[in-house]
């Protein structure tokens, strides 16, 4: 049994935790931005998928890796804008719009992938981001390989958390987003365009989701294949609730979650003979449900979440 405990003391486990956490961190923060402004974005799964495809394809077609990230950012923003036009400006059902966006983004991504690479049976590969060693720190025993030998994309993801934290707590825009999700009338009364604030939040959030998808094809793996998001978007939505809509807690939630995931992969290698692998694969999904149940007691949803704001409506 001691092997099961030893897992935690390997640098590989911690490095994997961070690797698994990155796409979740980006996606969860993206969803936090949307929901904080009062817009549920169920397009997340599809937006991650098309972000993964576009990021990868950009690099495959000859651009560099950073351009790949930028391309994902843009395509995510475009789908975010589509979501915002429907839910913010037209006040359509956020649930159904989100599902529709997920269907559209993922099918469009697959369609384009097949269009550009019609015949490929084995997915082609690119040269993804390589780990860089942070001077001095990477040479530390254990801590070095665990935390300071990651790819630039990984450090970027962590920077996004810092950015989101700063945005939400120290800028007028962050304050406006929080108000738009709580009492949009209050924001309007202070002379701020609620539609604009919500749209910015959804576009920015969706762009981050797409970048989260691109992390998979540009940093964690080196190819794009169908179904590679595999529910990560839905897990991110559960994490948002678990994180009480706060970026810093989203980081902790994603790391906790990724840690359990990294642990199960390693435990699976030890126990694979006894417990079928499918049960290990179920764990992330079941854990997400459990996390939501745990969080349910203290959950305080943004009050205006799901409620369209209509300007000039009689009250």
């Amino acid at each position: 049994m001691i092997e099961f405990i030893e897992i935690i003391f390997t640098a590989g486990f911690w490095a994997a935790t961070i690797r698994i956490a990155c796409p979740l961190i980006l996606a969860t923060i993206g969803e936090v931005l949307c929901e904080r402004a009062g817009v549920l974005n169920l397009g997340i799964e599809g937006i991650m998928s098309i972000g993964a495809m576009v990021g990868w394809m950009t690099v495959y077609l000859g651009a560099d890796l950073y351009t790949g990230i930028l391309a994902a950012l843009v395509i995510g923003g475009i789908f975010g804008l589509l979501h915002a036009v429907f839910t913010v400006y037209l006040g359509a059902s956020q649930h159904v719009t989100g599902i529709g966006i997920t269907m559209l983004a993922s099918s469009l991504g697959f369609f384009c992938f097949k269009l550009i690479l019609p015949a490929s049976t084995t997915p082609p590969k690119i040269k993804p981001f390589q780990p860089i060693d942070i001077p001095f720190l990477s040479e530390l025993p254990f801590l070095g390989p665990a935390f300071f030998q990651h790819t630039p994309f990984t450090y970027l993801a962590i920077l996004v958390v810092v950015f989101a934290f700063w945005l939400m707590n120290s800028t007028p825009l962050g304050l406006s987003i929080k108000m738009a999700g709580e009492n949009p009338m209050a924001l309007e009364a202070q002379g701020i365009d609620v539609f604009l604030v919500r749209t910015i939040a959804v576009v920015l959030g969706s762009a981050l989701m797409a970048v989260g998808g691109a992390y998979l094809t540009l940093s964690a793996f080196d190819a794009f294949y169908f179904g590679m998001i595999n529910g990560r978007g839905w897990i991110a939505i559960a994490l948002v609730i678990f994180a009480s809509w706060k970026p810093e807690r989203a980081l902790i939630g994603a790391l906790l979650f990724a840690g359990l995931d990294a642990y199960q992969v390693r435990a699976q290698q030890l126990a694979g003979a006894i417990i079928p692998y499918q049960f290990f694969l179920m764990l992330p999904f079941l854990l997400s449900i459990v996390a939501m149940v745990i969080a349910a007691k203290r959950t305080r949803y943004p009050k205006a979440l799901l409620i369209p704001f209509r300007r000039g409506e009689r009250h």
Partner: protein
Amino acid sequence: MTALLKVEKITKKFGDFYANNKISFDVKTSEVLAILGENGAGKTTLMNILFGHYTPDTGNVYFEGNAIEFGNTSYAIKLGIGMVHQHFTLAENLTVLENIIIGRQSIFSLSLPKRHARTKILELSKKFGLAIDPDELVANLSVSEKQRIEILKTLFLDCKLLILDEPTAALTPQETDALFSTIRNMVKAGLSVILISHKLNEILAVSDRIIVLRNGSSVGETDTNSANREEIAEMIVGKKIDYPQKTKISRKSMILSLLDISYNKTDAPNLSAINLNLYGGQILGIAGVAGNGQTTLAKILSGHLKATRGKIIFEGAGNVLVSPKTFMDLGVAYIPEDRNSDGIVGDMEIWENAIMTEMDDRFFRNSLGIINRKASFDRSKELCETYDVRMQSIRQRSRLLSGGNVQKLLLGRWLMRKPKIIIACQPTRGLDEGAIASIQKLLLAAQRNGSAIVLISEDLDELLSMSDDIAVMYKGSLSNSIKTSTTDKLSIGLQMAGEGF
């Protein structure tokens, strides 16, 4: 004196309905102008036009001589017009300070100058007597404290004209006095105030000039000094209202009593050790500032919440299963305070709403659960006729009904069941005088038929005129009830502020 604001022939239509019809007036510097009128007279629409929420169909408004741009709130703010809405526009998840400073910079600005703002807020609150802690979360504040933030918000913007929409609706008489002294301070400092209200007494106490609106049109204007109370009252309503007369009813046997009822969970305001007896033919008024537990009490009385401690005894029986259904069957009727979100299903037809409480009755359905439309339609028509619900057809969507008709439908739905107890929360709030009178008449008639009525209201005039006994709720406790004839507005107001608890 020069006119700070000049309004010229403002007209605003919603569909075929004239919310404002050619309204003109002006506001001078250092003046309190009162705009009086019933609910639905067009006051709020007018103010929303001034403040840039709505664009009028025709008409002009000049502020300090310049024509203002409509449909643009930030423009109104920039000019120096501030507005305190009847329903507060505050985000409860933010602090007082954050609520005040939002909107002062562009949303693309990179910093929030909190320190400077805090100093200014503290200065203003001292100058105008508006005590507040800038770093408190808004969710933790009382109604009158929230109103102070709203006023501070406008002062923070150096506003020259402050619009107050029904500012005293949820205040105790003492808090109202404090508000009026703030208003006087502001006028002394050179500001102008537009006060919108339907409470004549208050208007007479604080305003300099009065304008009366009715059905969207301006019907009169007078200086407060030379105003005649009765004349204004008639101007407001336009016709003589047949006010309900309370008759003396002999008290019948005890129907319900609460013994040491407490509620402490996080999902609703808490209650502590409430005792109460209710008799047939009695109207018990419950006063209190909103949020002190009245709604929790109403929900416990109607079976929507289960008390965490204590006993409810129905006609001597102490073991009642707590559920809305069992309470309904025992004869409890519950009129929730928000008739649109808790009372009526707006997108269902009138007949569907009319029989909603009767769905377990075999008269309206067969044993397979198939609805008997004929019986349902007949019942709905009967209901609408008996209780004077004015509509085009029972197949009409309910949300198209006016507030008064919705309330008559909801109340009528319960009265058809001959309830033993009626829990009425704010049953006349937001209705016009005619509808208020009809609702009050219906309640008094139910009392004569032997029903016990718990009347929960923030309107002290209504409580004093309707109730036999009055009790006050404060922070989850209920005072002993006393005979209405032995008390008055002021002493109830003191109790509402916590005296004696």
